[in-house]
């Protein structure tokens, strides 16, 4: 057994426990519903999910069942985290900075994060300009042509 598969195996009971915990949480939440129409469906699904989680844990315990997860490769975890943080940060900043500014900042951070080639003078000029054109173009398309009321910033006013 390789180190990677061992890592996955330790994850399986964790995932089974996480899903069982979710099912328990759902079952607990359904106790506050007033109408049977509201709880019959989620409660049924939660019970099924709980049963499946137990079967998954038993599979792991008795050493059968497939582990078809993807092993972690030599890819950059830091870049992954920055991407997710930039997107989430952009979403949360929209009401304060406005869609345009939040979008531009998120775009710039992700551009730098996804950059693997060396920064040449050409790229230093063209990439930011291209980014501004793309963000501005989509902003105009959605706000003007498609009449989507994109958020204006509480702090910036646009």
């Amino acid at each position, binding site marked *: 057994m390789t180190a990677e598969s061992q890592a996955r195996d330790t994850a399986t009971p964790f995932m089974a426990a996480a*899903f069982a915990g979710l099912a328990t949480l759902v079952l607990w939440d*359904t106790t506050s*519903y007033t109408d049977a129409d509201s709880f019959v469906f989620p409660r049924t699904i939660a019970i099924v999910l709980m049963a499946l989680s137990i079967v998954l844990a038993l599979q792991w315990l008795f050493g059968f069942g497939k582990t078809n997860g993807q092993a972690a490769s030599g*890819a950059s975890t830091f870049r992954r985290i920055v991407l997710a943080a930039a997107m989430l940060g952009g979403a949360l900043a929209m009401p304060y900075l406005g869609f345009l500014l939040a979008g531009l900042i998120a775009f710039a951070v992700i551009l730098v994060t996804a950059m693997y080639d060396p920064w040449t003078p050409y790229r230093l000029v063209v990439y930011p300009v291209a980014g501004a054109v793309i963000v501005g173009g989509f902003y105009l398309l959605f706000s003007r042509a*498609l009449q989507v*009321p994109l958020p204006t910033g509480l702090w910036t006013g646009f």
Partner: protein
Amino acid sequence: MAAIEHLLAALSPFNVLLALGGVIAGTIVGSLPGLTATMAVAVLVPITFSMEPASALILMGAIYTGAIYGGAYAAILLNTPGTPSAIATTFDGYPMAKRGDGDLAMTIACLASVVGGLVGALFLMVLAPPLAGVALAFGPVEYFWLAVFGLSLIASLSEGNLLKALMGGCLGLLLSTVGVAEVSADIRLTFGSQVLIGGIETVSALIGLYCIPVLIDLVATPARHLKVTQESKGLRLREGLALSWKHKFNLMRSSIVGTFVGILPGAGGSIAGLVAYSEAMRSSRNPEKFGKGAPEGIQASESANNATVGGGFIPTLVLGIPGTPPDAVILGALLVQGVKVGPNLFTSQGSIVYTFIWGLFLATILMLPVGLLIGRYAYRTIITIPKALLVPTVAFMTLIGSYSIRNSTSDVAIMVILGCIGWVLGRFGFSASPIVLGLILGSIAEQGFVQAWTIGAATHNLGGIFFGRPISIAIILFIVLSLFGPSLVRFIRGKKERPNDG
């Protein structure tokens, strides 16, 4: 003679221009993740108010059909369905693009969409009044079983681990119940959060679950997004045509499935694509190739979702019941125009209806050159754009697309968080497709189940309600066939081959 008159009316230069413009606009809007066919039609409806009813219908039908097809672009090139109708297109479209056959996948999708669109329009022209009755024959329990039929596809999307796929499906079903319950208005699974009261928006969720994991993996390595072959192969139209001919029965069956699902109010292109995909896989000689880049999968999904355009117009025009969400917008526009939809529409205002149907044929045929050209351009753009620009552009599109559905920044945050959860689950063998299936089919399944349960309990005939109606029995048979058919076929083949082994 009347038919020729209507055809000539549809072929007037103004109507041809409208059909062409509508297809181009619809294709572009549909290709942007988050912008649905409903939105494409709704945004452009005001333009039609000053037009003749037939011309207005032609423009709206062309936008609709173009948008449904346009959803395939992002599905194939970015693993993100441009519209929910293209969910099943991702299953085989993206694997084809990853192995360097993205251009062929785009051509196959275009050809299949044209075939599906033509079949749907043909049914609309020839059989609209009798087929409209199908919409009325489907009650809550039939919708419930139809949703279960869609969910049975989980078994074939399990990627070798049925247990994890079923758990993913359950997670999706639970996600579909978040927010205010439709029947009783109970607030469910929000845990006090205001952000979750509006529920989890399906399109935002599927953008997150499909696209964010791709972006997370894309940003982590310097490798190219899609494999690019050295020589430019062009449109690969001949290959696409040959594959379409080879799988003509799949195309026809999927188109008919799409037309019938389109007739059912509220079902829509996503269910049509999933049901057709499931059937294509069930009847294929190589079901194991599905999900790994099988052209038949793209053909099934794309022909079915475009067939829903014609199918959806059947109850819209004959009964005044919109078959799909864009039909509801079109119905509203028709009412503004003073067109009275109903059983007499085909006789009292036949010139409008038949001119429109010919216009729909025209728009669908125009989709072939338009789709191939735009598809080619989109493919070249995706494979040549540097990663440092591709990743932030797609990320920005997901932000603006998921925001624009309900003008909600909460939806954007939910989209990103779901995407991250989807990526983590993917590392442990829980693929996104069963979760998305559960999320999409959850509300239909719950509504049908609860309503049927209520009727059954009131009449003391639960068994009869769920298992006693002819259409329900037929759908249950299909579910059983979908789940156990492939295993049965393998078992029979194994038995036949065993004597030779000895």
